[in-house]
């Protein structure tokens, strides 16, 4: 299972890539695999202010729907418009072109609660 070491992970299988105050959010390889072929991503509106753990958007496949929760509190500054035409990006490149939205992180201390890659791999092994 692929889990890049430069990302932080939640127990709901979101990842966040932190660059300064900005964080890019997506779902992990483990999550996309469990979900199956993604058919639709219901992205949040730019400007939405999210509390940590609040439902930011939903990802749908043929047989499942899954809520995506904010790994940290913050304001949505950008969403991945390419997903409207090609939701399969989430499956093909979960850590790349399949990202979901960008967040201006309100409180960096939220990140302290997240998992490092090694810890997350262990977590997934238990869930599987």
């Amino acid at each position, binding site marked *: 299972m692929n889990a890049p070491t430069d990302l932080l992970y939640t127990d709901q299988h979101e990842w966040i890539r932190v660059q300064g105050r900005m964080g890019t959010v997506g779902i992990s390889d483990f999550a996309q695999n469990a979900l199956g072929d993604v*058919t*639709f991503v*219901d992205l949040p509106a730019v400007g939405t202010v999210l509390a940590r753990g609040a439902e930011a958007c939903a990802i*749908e*496949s*043929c*047989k*499942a*729907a899954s809520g995506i929760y904010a790994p940290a509190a913050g304001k949505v500054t950008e969403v991945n418009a390419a997903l409207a035409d090609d939701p399969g990006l989430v499956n093909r490149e979960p850590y790349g072109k399949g990202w979901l939205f960008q967040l201006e992180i309100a409180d960096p201390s939220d990140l302290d609660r997240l998992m490092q890659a090694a810890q997350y791999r262990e977590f997934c092994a238990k869930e599987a």
Partner: protein
Amino acid sequence: MPFIANTDEQRRQMLAEIGLTAEDLFAPIPAELRCGELNLPPGMSEQKAREHMARLAGRNASHLVSFLGGGFYDHFIPAAVEAIASRSEFYTAYTPYQPEISQGTLQAIYEYQSAVCRLTDMEVANASLYDGGTAIYEAIMMALRVTGRQRVIVDESVNPIYRKMIRSYTRNLGIELVETPVRLSVGKPDRERIADELDERTAALVVQNPNFFGVIDDFTDLSDAAHACGALLLVSCYPVALGLLKTPGAMGADIVTGEGQSLGMGVSFGGPYLGFMAARMEHVRKMPGRLVGRTADNQGRQGFVLTLQAREQHIRREKATSNICTNEGLCALTALAHLCLLGKQGLRELAQCCADKAYYAQQRLLFVPGVTLRYPKQWYFNEFILELPERAEAVIRRLLDRGFAAGFPLSRYYEGMDRSLLVAVTEKRTKEEIDLLAHALEASL
């Protein structure tokens, strides 16, 4: 025993083979929780049951010459409609969970969805809802999801039975439900009042065409007013009337619902009926109910599947767009067959015929001394309100004795309309019957 194949001998063999006794089968149910013999009569033969039911059917006055409508209409049903709907490959199947052996149901629903879109001038229709009333409720819930707002305005010329249903359903949900009174001088929604009520908190405005008084309207102005404050326009309509009338889509409606019973189903004492719903494609993922989509199989052949199921209860559970599971599949198939048999020209001719006969009835009944039209300046499709010189209920009672269900007394649902009689005319009523009604009415006053 009826409808059970295995003989006692086979039962004994089966039990022996699996090493259980008849008692073992119900062992999971503690003995103290079992019931004794039920207090029910013994079974009847098919012949006796049919005789009994025929006797009960005979104690219903389905033979009256009926001018009852109120949203539920007695239209002619071609024999081919019933022949198609009674094919047991359709009616003994269930929800098409296995598409490879359900292409019949699935393609029929796809065609039904297409027909509803074509009829209403909308972009997407679902596979059916229970009836015209629950369809409005579902449309309201959809509008709440689309707008994120909690306030709904319902015009009082929407079928009062549906308004009662909406009130029941919204009672536990913290929705602000506003019912705007009809402008009594014209029998139409009160535009000024609605303009006052529409605001930035409003999710939807609900109207009906033709409305419960039979009056035809054009809601383009209300559509503009609703959209100006970010609300949706919900229009409930009568599908046969759409053979002639301006479509909800052309008026700018966002969600269209209606009762499809008039498309090949009997009035059947209240059901089974057919709720239909159509909307704009941009809102499809907020829609309730089943949706069938066209796709391809592994060899590129066209095929149909249930789709966008992530909206539905079996996946989303408490977050689903609706709790609906079983809908009105066979009724949707019936409506489709009926629309196909009517065809493009036939539906328009049917609608015109209803309008002509209703117009004749209106003119003829106005010859009866003391009878007037309640809203003389309005346009009607096949239903209108007569103002009688005395209480409508008393007149209706006398006409029942003469073999007529002359119409519906508005006083049952509206104050100050004691003398108002709602009269509906379908293609099944003849000139002779209308003339006889006029004579009977004259004699009854």
